[in-house]
């Protein structure tokens, strides 16, 4: 069984991986991915590494001493707690440090630069290798406790994170739809040339289908992996850290899980629907219902970007369990606070079970349609004759 799946897999990969178009798309994707990482970072930080934080009763000298190396720190005096929170909410301030009753706190969204400052200011973390200048500043300020972080949202970082999630959702949809169309074209070509009939004398339809799905998956995986690696490298070069603006490794893993599930569901359905087409020109029409479903997922993720509440949020949450919509909506749902881990687990298992069932049904339909060379036109003619 696996020999035959492997043979189809190798054929699909070797035939397509040598095409210049494949590598041109891969290169373009790498450029887009780097831009996706770098551009929000540039928007958030400006062209030169600089950081603006507010200060409520915290000596400026202390904050200056704790500034990340190579970063220009701008300190904005904050009059009161309410003033600081208003600046976060309405003026794109990342956050501010406040000294209240001998305790220090940070209000706002922690990014890499601020995280570094908090680590510097945290006395427990500074037992070793405390810079003398900072030590002197801390002593002068009589600071003696850990910095407490108080999350204030929405901040600009959250918006950037939302954009990143949305962008990855769009990338997922592009990959799923593109490879769905590719696999559909491959099926139609085999049917149109009547090659499929020869193949089915040697192997079962489900193996042919699996070989195709896995072959195109390998091609898609190579592309997505190269895009992801280039994105992570861009992240590390830009921030010296792999976690910024919501693009953490755990988030990327979640993205990959849903992208794989999305690919499996859509490619199986695309192959099955495409097998109904008699000619390449008919393929778009054959797969149109699936394209419309994918559009629903896209619309749902666009709605989630707007942080809706109430019924809309509930509907999006429930739709995240519906096959074909789940891959896009479950990811977009992160913008609304995400799902509890156990729901994610249930959803992933359910989507995989659904796909296994879909594959069985798809193989039967695939078999039946591949041998049906009769256009559905006569039925339409009959209908119109009756209607006339």
């Amino acid at each position: 069984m696996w020999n035959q799946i492997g043979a189809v897999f190798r054929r699909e990969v070797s035939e397509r991986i040598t095409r210049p178009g494949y590598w041109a798309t891969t290169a373009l994707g790498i450029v887009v991915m780097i831009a996706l990482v770098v551009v929000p970072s540039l928007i958030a930080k400006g062209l030169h590494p600089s950081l603006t934080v507010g200060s409520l009763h915290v000596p400026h000298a202390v904050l200056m001493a704790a500034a990340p190396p190579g970063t220009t720190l701008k300190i904005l005096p904050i009059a009161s707690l309410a003033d600081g929170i208003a600046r976060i909410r309405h003026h794109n301030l990342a956050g501010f440090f406040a000294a209240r009753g001998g305790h220090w706190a940070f209000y706002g969204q922690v990014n890499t630069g601020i995280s570094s400052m908090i680590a510097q200011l945290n006395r427990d973390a500074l037992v070793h290798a405390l810079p003398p200048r900072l030590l002197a500043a801390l002593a002068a300020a009589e600071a003696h406790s850990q910095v407490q972080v108080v999350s204030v949202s929405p901040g600009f970082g959250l918006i950037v994170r939302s954009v990143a999630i949305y962008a990855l959702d769009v990338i997922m949809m592009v990959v799923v739809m593109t490879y769905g169309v590719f696999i559909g074209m491959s099926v139609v070509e085999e049917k149109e040339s009547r090659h499929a009939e020869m193949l089915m004398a040697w192997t079962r339809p489900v193996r042919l289908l699996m070989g195709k799905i896995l072959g195109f998956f390998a091609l898609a995986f190579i592309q997505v992996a190269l895009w992801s690696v280039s994105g992570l490298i861009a992240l590390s070069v830009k921030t010296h850290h792999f976690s910024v603006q919501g693009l953490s490794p755990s988030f990327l893993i979640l993205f990959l899980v849903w992208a794989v599930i999305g690919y499996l569901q859509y490619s199986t359905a695309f192959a099955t629907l495409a097998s109904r087409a008699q000619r390449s020109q008919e393929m778009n029409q054959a797969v149109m219902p699936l394209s419309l479903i994918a559009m629903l997922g896209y619309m749902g993720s666009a709605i989630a970007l707007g942080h809706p509440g109430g019924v809309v949020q509930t509907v999006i949450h429930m739709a995240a369990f519906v096959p074909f919509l789940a891959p896009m909506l479950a990811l977009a749902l992160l913008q609304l606070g995400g799902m509890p881990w156990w729901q994610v687990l249930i959803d992933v298992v359910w989507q995989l079970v659904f796909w296994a069932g879909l594959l069985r049904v798809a193989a039967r339909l695939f078999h039946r349609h591949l041998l049906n060379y009769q256009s559905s036109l006569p039925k339409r003619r009959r209908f119109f004759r009756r209607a006339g």
Partner: protein
Amino acid sequence: MAERLAAFDRVWFSYDGRPILEEASLALSTGEVVGLLGLNGTGKTTTMRLIAGILDPERGAVERTYRRLGYLPEERGLYRRLTVERYLRFVGELNGLPKADLRPAVDRLMEQFRLEEYRGRRIEALSKGNQQKVQLAATLVPSPDLMLWDEPFSGLDALNQDLLLDVLRDLRSRGVAVLLSTHRLDDLELLADRTYILAKKRFVEYIPPRQPAGYRVRFDQDGADRSIEVASDELPSQVQECAAHGWPVLSVTPKTGLESIFRELLGEGA
């Protein structure tokens, strides 16, 4: 002793309610070339698909005891972007041929079908005839014990048709069973050990006599193309008579029992 490779036992099959086969029975055994004749749309392709396991009968039983199958449908395609060698290797891999056997098998077929010079060339760059040879070679890659060939001569020039006839004889000598569907009755008469004629949704078996019943003589009678049928023992005198009148003999073709039976069956509304 001949081993049975495939058999139909009272098979019924229909497409969308249109009956194709009704209580149809046949059997194929090792080392025989069996013809399959029938009008277009009477079920020859369906018969091959049933034997190949692509379709299953509605009623009756199809016995498939062959180990490896070579199947060439009437309308066939290729992966046009693959090279000839890569395509043949793909067919071998699909049929589970061990890697060690794959290379010699592909090399042997390249030589047999005179495709060596096109080994590294993409199939789309080959002529139609050479593409047809690649398809035929592909059916032999799995070293089948049963071959299903549907119109294998179409698209081949005279030289390559001779090449295919040689391959066919070679297969028979090696004990491979071949089910051959073609409209070329002369070839069937020449090659087939027996022929199934699809008539009235059933198979009628025809086993050719050792000697032809007669001959068809075609000659040029003062500029007019004429043909007559004569009994075997009358052939020499008929040829002499033509020569005596100065009528050039254009062809002498064995009058096949197959043809007359085929026409007779069709005349009854097959």
